[in-house]
């Protein structure tokens, strides 16, 4: 059960006239007292921009790890062994796992105005994320194909072919 604290939504006006705690100097607040709304608005907007930036980072994170994964694939070789199979399984499974948790993954970066859990929030980032994950999947499938694990040839379906009896009977 996870929850997040949304500090931006705190209603500041309600708490403005509270006495400061004992020993609290009011100097700084009084010097900036002229522009609190302005400052808070700027902070909020920069915060939103930061969140969007972080969302983009997350969206292209799978693509960033691709070179490393490609290197691992190269190192694991073309044979069907436990190591190469492990990497291939990882490559094939992570995109699906990522996409299944796409909303939760982007929820921290959702703008305050929208529903964090909705699919329609951060659509561009999510599309990019989807594309990057598909890229990872494609690399995994390419590896599978190069290892001969994809049933692409007719030879892979030969065992399911059946033949009946010839209509003519020749006696020998």
């Amino acid at each position: 059960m996870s929850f997040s604290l949304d500090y931006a939504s705190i209603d500041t006006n309600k708490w403005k006239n509270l006495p400061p705690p004992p020993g609290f100097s009011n100097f700084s607040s009084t010097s900036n007292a002229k522009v609190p709304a302005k400052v808070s608005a700027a902070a909020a907007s920069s915060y939103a921009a930061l969140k969007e930036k972080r969302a983009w980072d997350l969206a292209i994170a799978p693509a960033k790890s691709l070179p490393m994964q490609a290197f691992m694939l190269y190192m694991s070789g073309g044979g069907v062994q436990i190591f190469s199979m492990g990497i291939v399984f990882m490559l094939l499974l992570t995109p699906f796992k990522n996409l299944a948790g796409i909303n939760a993954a982007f929820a921290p970066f959702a703008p305050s105005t929208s529903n964090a859990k909705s699919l329609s929030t951060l659509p561009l980032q999510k599309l990019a994320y989807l594309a990057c994950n598909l890229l990872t999947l494609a690399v995994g499938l390419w590896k599978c194909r190069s290892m001969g694990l994809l049933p692409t040839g007719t030879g892979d379906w030969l065992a399911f072919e059946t033949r009946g009896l010839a209509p003519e009977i020749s006696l020998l």
Partner: protein
Amino acid sequence: MRCLRQLFLASLWCATSWALHESDVGVVDWHSKLIGVPLHGSIHIAPIFHDDLVLTATSNNVLAALNTSDGAIVWRSIYEAADPIMLFKIHGNTVTSLSGPGGATLRAFDIPTGHLLLEKRLHNPLNGRLHEPSNLGTSVIHLERGQDDAPRVLALTNGDTIRSINSVTGETEWTWNSPDQGSLIMYSQVIVDHSTVYGIGLAKSVASYTLHVTALSISSGEVTASVNIPANIADGLSDFLGVSAGSGSAVTPCIAWLEQGAIKAALLKPDLKGQIMAIPALKYKSIVDVGLTRNGQFMAVKDDGAAQVLHLDAQTSSLRPIWEFAGSTPSKAQSESIFMGSLDANGEPRIARVYWSNAHNKAVHQTFAAQLAEGKGSTSGFTFPFETQVHGVFSQIAFDGVSTGKGNSSTRMLLTTTTGAVQLWQHDKMLWVREEALATIQVAEFVELPEKKIIGSHVGLEEETFLERITRQFSDAKNLPQYLLSFATRFATGSYATVSASAASSEDTLSRDAFGFRQVIVAATSHGKIFGIDSSNGKVMWSRVLGLGWAKKVGGTIVPVKMFVTRTVSDGETPQVMLVVQRRATNSLVDTVLFHIDALTGADARQDAPPTVGDILEGVDVISGPLIDAFMLPTANKTLAFLDEFLQVRLYPDTAASLAEFETLAPSLHFALRAGSAGQRQILGHQVTLSPDLSQFYVAYPTWSITLLAGEEIIALIPNTRGDVASVGKVLGNRSTLYKYLNPHLTAVLTSTLADSPPTCSVYLVDGVKGSIVYHASLPAAEGKCDVQAALTENWLVYQYFDDEYAGVGQSKGHHVVSVELYEGRGADEKTRSSDITSYSNKTLELNVYEQTYVMPHGITALAPTSTKFGVTTKDIIVSSRKNSVQSIPRRLLNPRRPKQKPTTEEMEEMLVQYDAVLPDDPRLILSHNYEVANVRRIVTSPSLLESTSLVFAYGLDLFFTRVAPSSTFDVLSENFNKAQLVLTVGGLVIAIMVTKPMVAKKRLKERWYQ
């Protein structure tokens, strides 16, 4: 590089092939060495006793020595088929044979060891004259050691040449040729006295034959005299004899002949002057040589059939009858007598007479000994229990005169019977019998054995009461402790059935072993006997004499044509076979007879079978006329269909049910038959129809024809082997598929066109439904004969031929094996569903052919693909080579898609190895160990219950059986599998769990406390 490649190949075979281990020899295989049925009809090739051996020449062209005490083969010499044995003669410890047309080759063997002492070609076999009988005009006489002590042999060959040959060095001392070669004089006998050789020939005169005698000097071969004796011989071939009596310098030679019912004789002197004597007052039918002509005795049959012994007396130079066998006139009470002469220990002639007495129901043996001093003779006889119902009629005897002494108790004789058995009798005891008919197997099939029956005692379950059921269950439970004990011992000792163990069972019951290696080989021979052979040890389980039916009265022969397994174990009950034979009666009538046999016991399997007499099995006359062909219909009842000479279809069993089955199948039945006269052969495709105005039976009518070239003769039609096809395609390295061309109607046709120049042989693959030629190859006919062997399985055709001459590109001298594979479409991934489309579709001819030729180190006499239960295992080709061994050629080596260059990765993925023209002569591929498996004519393979293993039976002169696993025994646990280790590991783990479980539980509890 080459070395490396060979190393690579060797490592590949190590991985895939299964070489025969020495420990498996005699366990997984057996070999029975045979000699064939002794020849009869002429005294010159009849078996002869010599000390403890008996020498015989056989119809399989083998000269062999058998041990008289146990019948074992001491040695045998196998002659080439083109080199038939004409005669053999024993002298001292040497046996001399003449073989080939006209007696082209002279060979001498040492009798105790069989070592070849001398081999000499007397003339080119092509110049040999062919006579009827073939050994006419040939003769061999060993000369007594003369003055110069050189052992010499006189050989008459071709009817016109006499040679004196030093039998140690082989040098020809002199040669005499008949002055007018090719004339009407044909010399056929040679007799000698101390100084002169007399060549006796027949000269054809106007109405009959006259005798011509030429006298030659024994030392120089010069003609001393030549005379024409005005004999008037009607028959010619067997109506005269050269006889000599006496020894040393007192030899009296004489010729005796039959002239218009009278025996006349003339004494021969070096100047050939003398008088013709006649035996007055007696009329004779024929004269018979019983092998005693050099001892002055022969036999003559009087007009009334009584047999007389005639004796030439050396002192008085007179020829007279000295004995007449009583009761030798033909009568219903006894069979015709067979006579054979031999010398006793003192060199005195003895004549044995053997006949079957219907009165005693036994065979009778009589020995005649002449007491010449008293001028009379005596016979002594005994009866012996010859089993005529089991072994037919005796056709020939050999008689050991040395064994006759006082009384008859040790008299030995060798009987050859019409069923091909060779028996040695000592007095009235049969010492041994050899079933030599097995060297003439015509058709053979494997038949599976049923499982061991678990006999349950529950019958009539519905009516039994509670008490009865309890008692039954208790009585059934009495075997439980035994079962538990055997289970425990089996589990503890791990004594399971293994693949390398012998399949022979110690029990007498006929039941299969765990893997189905033990089967019955039903083999029909050309001597009218059928055998059931246990495939686990080669013993004859049962044998039956095929009855002649109505032809029993006139006599006849039985020629097996085809054999069908009509009921197998999987159909329930006992397996059955049907044997189709052609019965040729002596009066030239031919019938088609069917024998319906229980394969486990050899009993008649017909429901209304008449009671059998002895071992004689009577068949059903399905067609009173010759058979064109016989087929088994692919129906549940396995009905047989026969085509008579009018192409009418007869069915067996001829019931309404089988007729109804046939009617439903009739519109779709197709078959190909040979047709046409010599020189214009055709292959005709047929279908059947019913036209009531023509015949009450279905009649075959031709639908297509393939007209062969003028002079092209059909050698064989080889149908595709029927069996499961595991995969309809071949997957390539790039995972595309070559679909196999699995046309079920394919038939291979082998033809020869010997009249052409150069002569050729051809191999065709013909679609049996519409007659299209799918594949055709023309091969050179080496030495003017087509020795092509072929095998067709699935989409794979393998054939071999011999190429003797380099005549153009692509030819080289050697034995070639061609491997041909047919695939659908023009390339990979194209399919036409060739196995189930109608043959009338155009697509049946869309195929591509891969073929490659390999060179075999040895010639091949027969080849066959292995067969397994589901067809999953690779098919190897089993071949029998001319060096008398049986070997396998792995499929990998015969793959027609082997690349010509270094294999690419994709090709390596397909396990293809680079093409190498020469198939290796690898001793690991030899299945027959060091057995001599001679003259194999056919190889039969059969699946066992293990998918990996195929049974192989080769027959010809010898019989050989083994089992092969082309892809190694992948479906059984390896024998060196460490069962103890597995059990110990599992046990150790169990103990470890038992120990650690309470510890873990205690620890968990503690953790709870301190949490």
